C-alpha cells in the first residue's frame, strides 16, 4: 500500500513539473506584468530598470526556478484583475465547481448502473432499444446545447427552475460555501448538474450495457445459474462486479474530460466556479489567474487519477497494488 502511494507521488511530481513548466512558459510570453503595474507614460529606460529589478530579464531557467519555488509555497503571483493572490482567487471558487461535479457524478452513477444493467439483461427488448436510441441522441447533442435546451424548457417555458447562478449558499466547515443544504441552492444545482451529467451518461450506459452483456455470457455466470443462485444476486453481484472493472478504468479517464466541460456548463449557467473564472481570465488576459487555474486543474487531474487507480485496485482482487499482499 505504502509503496503504491510512494510510486504515485513520484509520478505526480513529474506530471506537476511538466504542467508547471508549460504554465510558466505561457506566463512568460503572455501579457506584460509591467503593463499592469505602471501606466503608459513611463520611459523605456525606466521600464528596463524595473524589469531588471523584478528579475524579468534573467535567463529562463532562473526565472522558472524562482517561479517553482514560490509555487510550492502557494504563491502564484497576484491576479491582475482582482489584485489578490491568484491561487486564493481560484480556490475560493473551488467549492462551486466541486459541487457541480459531485451533483453530476451522483446523477451518472444512479442512472447509468440500473439502466445499463436492465438493458443488458434484455438486450433486444423495448427498453433496451429506447435506451440505445436516446443515448445516440445524447452523444450528438453538444453540452452547451443541452444546457440551452434545459434552460429554455425548465426555466423559461415552465418556470420550474432558475436559469443561472448558485442561489442561496451556506458555509460549512468554516470555509466551504455549499449549495447542498438549502432548498434554493439545490434547485440551482439541478439543471447544471444534469447538463454536466448528460455528456457522460450515454457513454456510461452504453459501456455498462456492452460489458454486462459480455459478462452474462461467461462461464462463471452460467455456473452461478447452475448452482441455483437467485437472479438478483447473479445480476447485481456476480455480473455487476466484473462489469464495473473496465467501467471504472474508462470512467477515470473521462474525469479529465469532465473538467473541460465544467468550463462550458459554468459559462451557460453563469455558475460562479473555476471554469467561468478561467474564461473571464482569458478574456482579460489575466495571466497569473490563467496559470493558477492550469496548475490547480493539473493537481486535480493527478489526484483523481490516483484515486481511480486506488479504487480499481481495491475492487479487483486479481490486481496487486504495488506493495499490497
Amino acid at each position, binding site marked *: 500500500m505504502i509503496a503504491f502511494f510512494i510510486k504515485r507521488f513520484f509520478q505526480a511530481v513529474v506530471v506537476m513539473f511538466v504542467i508547471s513548466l508549460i504554465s510558466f512558459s*505561457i506566463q512568460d*510570453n*503572455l*501579457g506584460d506584468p509591467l503593463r499592469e503595474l505602471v501606466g503608459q507614460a513611463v520611459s523605456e529606460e525606466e521600464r528596463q530598470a524595473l524589469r531588471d529589478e523584478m528579475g524579468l530579464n534573467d535567463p529562463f531557467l532562473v526565472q522558472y526556478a524562482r517561479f517553482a519555488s514560490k509555487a510550492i509555497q502557494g504563491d502564484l503571483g497576484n491576479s491582475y484583475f482582482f489584485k489578490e493572490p491568484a491561487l486564493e482567487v481560484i480556490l475560493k471558487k473551488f467549492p462551486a465547481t466541486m459541487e457541480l461535479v459531485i451533483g453530476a457524478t451522483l446523477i451518472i452513477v444512479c442512472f447509468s448502473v440500473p439502466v445499463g444493467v436492465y438493458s443488458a439483461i434484455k438486450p433486444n427488448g423495448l427498453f433496451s432499444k429506447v435506451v440505445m436510441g436516446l443515448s*445516440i*441522441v445524447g*452523444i*450528438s*447533442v*453538444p*453540452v*452547451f*446545447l443541452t444546457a*440551452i*435546451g434545459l*434552460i*429554455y424548457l425548465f426555466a*423559461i417555458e415552465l418556470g420550474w427552475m432558475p*436559469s443561472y447562478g448558485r442561489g442561496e449558499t451556506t458555509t460549512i466547515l468554516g470555509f466551504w460555501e455549499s449549495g447542498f443544504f438549502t432548498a434554493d441552492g439545490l434547485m440551482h444545482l439541478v439543471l447544471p448538474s444534469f447538463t454536466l451529467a448528460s455528456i457522460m451518461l450515454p457513454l456510461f450506459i452504453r459501456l455498462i450495457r*456492452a460489458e454486462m452483456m459480455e459478462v452474462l455470457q461467461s462461464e462463471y455466470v452460467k455456473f452461478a445459474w447452475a448452482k441455483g443462485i437467485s437472479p438478483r444476486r447473479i445480476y447485481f453481484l456476480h455480473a455487476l462486479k466484473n462489469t464495473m472493472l473496465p467501467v471504472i478504468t474508462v470512467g477515470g*479517464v473521462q474525469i*479529465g*474530460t469532465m*473538467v*473541460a*466541460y465544467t*468550463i*462550458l456548463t459554468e*459559462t*451557460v449557467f453563469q455558475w460562479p466556479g473555476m471554469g467561468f473564472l478561467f*474564461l473571464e481570465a*482569458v*478574456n482579460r*488576459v489575466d*495571466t497569473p489567474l*490563467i496559470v493558477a487555474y*492550469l496548475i490547480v*486543474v493539473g493537481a486535480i487531474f493527478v489526484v483523481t*487519477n490516483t484515486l481511480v487507480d486506488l479504487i480499481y485496485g481495491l475492487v479487483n482482487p486479481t490486481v496487486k497494488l504495488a506493495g499490497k499482499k
Partner: protein
Amino acid sequence: MTDSTMKMDAPPSTWQRFKESHFWHSFRIDRVAQISFAIFVLYVVMALSASFIAPFDPYDPSQIDILDSEIPPSWDDEGDERFLLGTDAQGRDMLSTILYGTRVSITIGICAVLLQAFLGIVIGLTAGYVGGRVDSLLMRIADIQLSFSTMMVAIIVLAVFQATFGTELYQELAMIMLILVIGIAEWPQYARTIRASVLAEKKKEYVDAARVMGFGRLRIMFRHILPNTLSPILVISTVQIANAIISEASLSFLGLGMPVSQPSLGSLISSGFEYIFSGAWWITVIPGLVLIVLVLVMNLLGDWMRDVLNPKLYKG
C-alpha cells in the same frame, strides 16, 4: 466434340464487386443508414452551394437593415416571408447565416479529421510496422496525449493564442487554428487503431511475400498493409468528424473559435443565446437543431458502419 474456344468472363470490375458486397447489401436493408446518409449528403450539398442558394449574403453590410432585426420565422404570425427562418439581432437572414455557418462547421470538421487521420495513420503504421523502441515511444506519447482531453488542450491553446496575438489577427487565423488544434489533438485515436490492424496484418503471409520480393519498408507499409486496414479507419472517421464538429461548436460557443464575422454554427448559437430570454428563441434554437441533426446523422452512420464492417473489433 465441337471445337469450342473457352471464353472466360472478364473479372468483375470494382463497381460490380461493390454492388455485390456485404457492405452494399447491409446498406440496402437498413433504412436508418439510408436516411442518415441522405441527410448527410443534403447537408454537404447545401453547404457547398451556400453562396448560390442563400437568399441573402449575411456578411454584406449593404444587405442588412437593422430595422429587420429579431423577426420570427415565417410560419409565426409576426414573421416575414422574405426571411424563412427569421432574422437575428442585427437583421441578418437566419437561413443564410445558417447555410454559411454549416459550411464553415463541416469544412472544419472534415479538414481536422483529414489532418488527424494523416498524422495518425503515418504514426500508427510506423509504430506497428517498425516495432521495438520506436513503437514504445510513440505509444507512450499517444497515451499521454490521450489522457488530456481534447477540449481542455484546445481551450488552453486557443486561449493563449488569442491572448497573445489579439483579437484581430486571431479572427483571420481562427479557422486554421481550429483545424490544427483539433487535428493534432486527436491523432492518437487513429494511431492506436491503425497500429492494432498493422500488428495483426504483419503476421500474414502476404507481408512476408512482399519482403522476400525485396520491397522496401515504406512501400510495404503504404501500398500493401494500409489498404487492408481501411475498414477500421472508415468506422472511426465518421464518429471523429461528428466529434470534431461538436468540439469546434463548443469552442466557438466559448468565444475561442470562429468569430462573429465568419461564424460557424457554434458561434451562431453563442451569439443568439442571450436573446432566448427575451423571447427570440429562433436565433439560437434553429442553428442548434441544425447542428444536432448533422452530428446525430454522422453518429448513426458511424454506428451502422461499425456493426457492418466488424461487429466485435472496435469496442473502444
